[in-house]
């Protein structure tokens, strides 16, 4: 057994997992507050990455301006999606809304292809490229910095979620919608807000994922892995998304390194099935999830 190799793969897995955790966070946020299973999460990440290309390459703006602009623009996109597509569907059955988000994913892919074509793009290189060593183990700088940013975003989000008054409104709405209304909380506004925040988080995730592996319209497939993450963690558990994100990242990377790339998906989906058998609501999920 080569322990150095083993730990290097482990580090890479945690790095990948950090990004899953960020995307999972965005997904769970929407599900928890609005009970919408957003199948377009991967496409939202993709949209964020392309919008970044638009600002940084298209308009040739410096990276430090492009990043906040991308976050704002993607947040706006999230708000528009909620207002025009999701809001009118509220109260319809879960399957209809589920289908609508699948449709939304295709629309986003279509839009991206109209503006940027179907070929893969590389993002402007802005992540430092000197190698990182943790002990003796080498970690790809992109994965390392990506993980650091992911960790900061998650930490920031959790602090805001706990301390800001809007966080209380959000958690109240997630806990009991009718009761939230009865407090005078503007529940539709909370829904919009949730989509805006989730889209902003997705934008950051998209920029990071795109910087590591490049972007293409098929990047939405990434959403499939994110779906596995949140189902394992429990659709309505933020903590679950974070832990399952790291977990899936590790499993995937180890399977890829020791068994071969084609076993990645097999490993994660086997894990998914196994966990669903033992814990139908995921590791940390609480509520009954509507059968789709």
């Amino acid at each position, binding site marked *: 057994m080569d322990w150095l190799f083993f730990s290097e793969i482990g580090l890479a897995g945690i790095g990948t997992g950090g990004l899953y955790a960020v995307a999972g966070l965005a997904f769970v946020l929407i599900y928890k507050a609005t009970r919408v299973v957003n199948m377009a999460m991967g496409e939202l990440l993709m949209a964020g990455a392309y919008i970044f290309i638009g600002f940084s390459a298209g308009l040739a703006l410096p990276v430090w301006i492009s990043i906040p602009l991308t976050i704002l623009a993607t947040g706006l996109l999230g708000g528009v999606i909620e207002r025009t597509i999701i809001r009118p569907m509220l109260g319809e059955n879960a399957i209809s809304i589920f289908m609508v988000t699948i449709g939304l994913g295709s629309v986003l892919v279509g839009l991206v292809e109209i503006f940027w074509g179907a070929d893969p793009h590389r993002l402007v290189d802005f992540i430092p490229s000197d190698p990182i060593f943790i002990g003796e183990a080498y970690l790809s700088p992109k994965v390392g910095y990506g993980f650091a940013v992911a960790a900061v975003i998650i930490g920031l989000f959790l602090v805001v979620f706990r301390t800001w008054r809007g966080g209380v*409104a959000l*958690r109240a709405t997630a*806990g009991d*919608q009718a009761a939230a*209304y*009865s407090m005078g909380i503007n529940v539709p506004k909370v829904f919009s807000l949730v989509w805006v925040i989730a889209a902003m988080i997705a934008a950051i995730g998209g920029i990071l994922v795109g910087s590591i592996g490049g972007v293409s319209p098929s990047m939405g497939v990434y959403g499939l892995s994110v779906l596995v993450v949140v189902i394992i963690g429990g659709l309505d558990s933020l903590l679950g998304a974070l832990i399952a994100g790291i977990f899936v990242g590790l499993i995937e990377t180890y399977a890829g390194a020791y068994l071969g790339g084609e076993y990645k998906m097999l490993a994660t989906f086997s894990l998914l099935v196994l966990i669903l058998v033992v814990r139908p609501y995921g590791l940390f999920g609480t509520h009954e999830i509507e059968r789709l």
Partner: protein
Amino acid sequence: MTSASPILDIRNIEVVYNNTIQVLRGLSLSVPRGAVVALLGSNGAGKSTTLKAISRLLELERGELKSGDIVFDGQSVQSDTPHGLVRRGLFHVMEGRRVFEDLTVEENLTAATYANDITEAKKRFELVYEYFPRLYERRDGLAGYLSGGEQQMLAIGRALIANPEIILLDEPSLGLSPLFTEEIFGIIARINNEQGTSMLLVEQNAAMAFAVADYGYIMETGKIVLDGPTELLTNDADVQEFYLGMGGHDDEEHKSFRDIKHYKRRKRWLS
């Protein structure tokens, strides 16, 4: 609006769930400003539905106001959103307390600050803790871990934060010990006295409700079958039998109020 007009006026409303199940059939009642009005009725009579129609939470359950009108503070509730109504001063404390279990006691109160100007609302935390010292002791604990009685206190505390004109209270005594029930009703009376808040009180515990209410309505299968000042209702033989648990036998308890229509007629002539 003159102060003589009622704070809440329900005119002949019909409510239907899922476009099929009619629950309210021409119900009318009104709450004078500053008064406590009790609404009694057996299980399934439509009491909670009445309150949900007023606060417009009905629509969340596919219920619909088919006809009639509900006027709060001189304006129809139909032109408002549920949260908009709360901001206008109508607060519905729902059946079963509905505290946010994953939030702390204090966060539950914070959730109610959206009904009001935030600085105004912040000042009222002290008031809540003064009415309910127990909530102060447990302010940092999760609401889900409170006892049923403490959760009811929290539910009423949230209403106090919002500083409403009227509180709709749905069965505050539900599942509470007699001692706790008495404490809660004592506070309901105090809030009415000291804050001048009007109340529409739905109860199964008629004795308690009549102790604090000025006026009572009794409903059955979707409409009012009897109403009057509480002193009159308290002394009424049928009300005593069916709602105050005096006289009569247990096995007769499910006898319907419709059996005593003669009483209602007499009552109409008298008033």
